[in-house]
């Protein structure tokens, strides 16, 4: 059997994280702890940042708990 067709999971590596967040315009807000997880409401920092998603022409963030990321990932990635 050959290779299965693959679904993409878009990811940013830790090494590129700050530059990526800067391009999205949310690095400062995260550093200053102004953003909260869209799922559990915890304050997002560079340590617990888990992912980012577009919502209503804006950018939403979630923390790195799998439980917070799972609903977001349904039919969006992977």
């Amino acid at each position, binding site marked *: 059997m050959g290779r299965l067709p693959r*679904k993409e999971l878009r990811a940013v590596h830790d090494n*590129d994280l700050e530059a990526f967040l800067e*391009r999205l315009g949310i690095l400062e807000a995260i550093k200053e702890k102004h953003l909260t997880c869209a799922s559990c409401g915890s304050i997002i920092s560079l340590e617990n940042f888990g992912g980012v*998603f577009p919502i209503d022409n804006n*950018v939403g963030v979630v923390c790195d708990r799998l439980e917070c990321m799972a609903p977001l990932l*349904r039919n969006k990635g992977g």
Partner: protein
Amino acid sequence: MNVESIVVAAVPSTSLLGVIIYLLKNPEKAEKWGALFARGFAGLSDASERRSVSGEIQSDINTFAKDVTGKVDASILPYGIKIKWEKSDNVSYESFVSEGQVVVRMRNHRNQARNLALATVAYVQAGFLPDARPHFDQEVSNAMDTAMARKILLDRRRSDALSIFNKEMLTEQTPMAARMSKIMQDLDAKGLFNEMLLREMADLGKRLTGIAPTEDSRKEIRDFVVFCEKLTEKEPGEDVSPDFKKKLLRVSIVLIAKSKTYAERGVMPHLNWVDKCLKEEMDSIYICATGPHIRAARELDALLQSYQSVRRIAEHSEKVLGQKGEIVNGICIVYHRLA
């Protein structure tokens, strides 16, 4: 050049050719080796670090998917996974918002357990039973995802990633979701999660493609999952042949477990049961046995192979959990009724 030197020269090139053919046939293995090689240079270049992270995850998940696809049904896990790295220089606020894509964070390869747990959750959410999934209610969907994610991590022997998964994904289950998860875990221990439950869901997905889900179909699938509890709670030495006879799913499971019945009457009681199932238009018949009862299952299988009204779909053998909690050989033979 003498014969000996020709042979000495030919052996390495033959071996190399063998390795190349093997890697071409098993791209996931090549990916794993590539990731391990890249890890050696991970401290020197960002590209090697990324390759080390993504290659290992892709190899682990895609190897598992290919295995299930080959052994059970291609529509259970029809896709593999590819990690697409976002680079800061080709992203902007506008492009991100307009593309509508989620981007997740992957950590350094030293934190690969978390990376794998995350990728597994993402993979299962998007690529597991995509045709049948719209017909699952939320609790069935969550229980299925949990069971499959655990299965992937266990299969890849990643207890570190499994521990993160258990800690962060199983915190707030409803009593029904916890019950369904337990049913699926017990089914898996008996070798019936892949062979029976997922096979039925894959078939159902194919039949229902393009049909809008209804409350009735969702309820029927939920009832089927709960019905499977009967298979996991069977007492030792008890011959049970439960069946599920509804609109979408018509399944009978012949569990052969009673030595006395076989000694006295051979496989006739089971054959009579199968005849009854066929008269009642059951679509799938699973013949399952463990340990010494496998002989009876084989005898029944041999008789059924002469039937014109059924088609033998698959046979699967593996080590399973026996009735007293011991590890035993198990067998599951699948028949479909011909319309």
